[in-house]
């Protein structure tokens, strides 16, 4: 560890020299690059910089299912200084593996006979995520463009220190505004101009897959003979996320493959001669489950539009998917409002169209949160 820290210190010193002296020679630059390349910080176990690591057991018990999930997650956060010593490359890779098993019925969780009461069998899941960004935030804040924003924000602040672009403040005076003279602070710019911090762009990749088994009960019409089938279901998804610079939008492309079985609709089935309807009729699917295969191409764009003083912030998330195998598509445009302050009321309106049903739907929702998380 001591050797590692000494090496790190040497690299930092090399970077400091490079940043301070723009007339670095080509040979010096090579040394700096080599030192920086060697200087990859990888978090050791139990590092508080770790995002997720370790095992987890969870139980999900309800009227329709009762299962236990065992998950193990591993992550590898890493940072290095960029070759020009002016930025930081920060990445994180996460791998999660999970197994879900039915654990019994709603009445007696330890009774294996009650396993049959549920439609879900065991399943295995896998998820791989990699996210990375290169931060040059120091240079962005020191840029001429951000300097002009600061001057504009200070001028706006001096006009009325307690009235920001999107919020109202209390007790601020001209001296508050003057304290920011010659300095660069993005929250101040956002307060008085409503402009976001010039944050970096970032990319994320997510791969996930799940293989499970579902149990299906059905009856043979007329004889009402009972049948049970166990069928596999498989889904695999690959997603690519792009977080645009400025931190107010996110674009995502998704490819999903699904191969699953779906039960037939339940119907009233009766024997040819009905003596007692309770004994001679049942409400059940009249045939085995059918196989459904989908290949979905999806795209989504999320944009934080802005804040209206006294009301809240607005966001939109136009999205669409196309089923290559079924040859139908679905598009949706939700518009979100996030009220100022803490509120469980998160209203919005959604417009959607599904070509399979040829349905155009306008819906109002009350508790859907707009988020620029992946």
């Amino acid at each position: 560890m001591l050797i590692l820290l000494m090496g790190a210190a040497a690299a930092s010193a090399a970077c400091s020299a490079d940043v301070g002296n723009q007339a670095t020679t080509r040979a010096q630059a090579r040394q700096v690059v080599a030192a920086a390349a060697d200087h990859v910080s990888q978090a050791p176990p139990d590092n508080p910089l770790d995002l997720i690591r370790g095992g987890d057991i969870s139980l999900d018990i309800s009227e329709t299912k009762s299962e236990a999930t065992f998950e193990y997650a591993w992550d590898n956060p890493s940072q290095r200084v960029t070759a020009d010593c002016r930025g930081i490359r920060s990445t994180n890779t996460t791998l999660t593996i999970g197994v879900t098993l039915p654990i019994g019925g709603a009445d007696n969780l330890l009774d294996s006979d009650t396993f049959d009461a549920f439609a879900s069998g065991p399943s295995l899941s896998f998820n791989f995520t990699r996210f990375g960004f290169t931060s040059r935030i120091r240079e962005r804040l020191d840029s001429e463009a951000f300097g002009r924003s600061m001057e504009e924000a200070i001028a706006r602040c001096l006009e009325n220190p307690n009235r920001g672009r999107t919020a109202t403040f209390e007790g601020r005076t001209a001296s508050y505004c003057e304290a920011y003279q010659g300095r660069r602070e993005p929250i101040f710019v956002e307060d008085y101009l409503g402009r976001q911090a010039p944050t970096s762009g970032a990319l994320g990749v997510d791969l996930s897959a799940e293989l499970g088994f579902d149990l299906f009960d059905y009856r043979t019409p007329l004889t009402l003979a009972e049948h049970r089938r166990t069928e596999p279901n498989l889904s695999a998804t690959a997603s690519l996320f792009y977080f645009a610079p400025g931190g107010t939008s996110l674009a995502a492309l998704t490819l999903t493959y699904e191969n699953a079985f779906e039960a037939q609709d339940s119907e009233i089935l009766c024997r040819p001669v009905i003596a007692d309807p309770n004994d001679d009729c049942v409400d059940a699917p009249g045939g085995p489950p059918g196989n459904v295969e989908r290949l979905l191409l999806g795209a989504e764009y999320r944009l934080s539009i802005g804040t209206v003083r006294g009301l809240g912030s607005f966001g939109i998330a136009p999205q669409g998917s196309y089923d290559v195998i079924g040859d139908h598509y679905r598009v949706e445009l939700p518009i979100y409002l996030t009220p100022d302050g803490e509120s469980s009321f998160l209203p919005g309106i959604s417009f959607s169209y599904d070509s399979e049903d040829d349905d155009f739907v306008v819906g109002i929702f009350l508790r859907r949160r707009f988020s620029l998380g992946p």
Partner: protein
Amino acid sequence: MAVTLKLTVKHEGALAPPAIFADRDPVIDFNEDGEANVTFDPGECTLTFEIFGAGASLSLDLEGRPAIIIPVGAEWPFEVEVRQDRSAAAGRIYFAIGG
């Protein structure tokens, strides 16, 4: 004479470790407790940060807790949270280091 201080960084919900710059220098040499030694020249100094992840939080604390100049009214540990309708947050703290 340059002053070396211990910087403690904690974060939760971030998509990757946050980027921290002490004055002009990138800081990545954190130990297992999220601490790093950073060197400042006396006078007005800065810590610049960038963190990714809607809803993520970041806490920065500096040994000796020198007087914060900007943001006005801020205190150590300096804490920031990424809004849900943002993918990232960035900021800069100005503080005074004695000689």
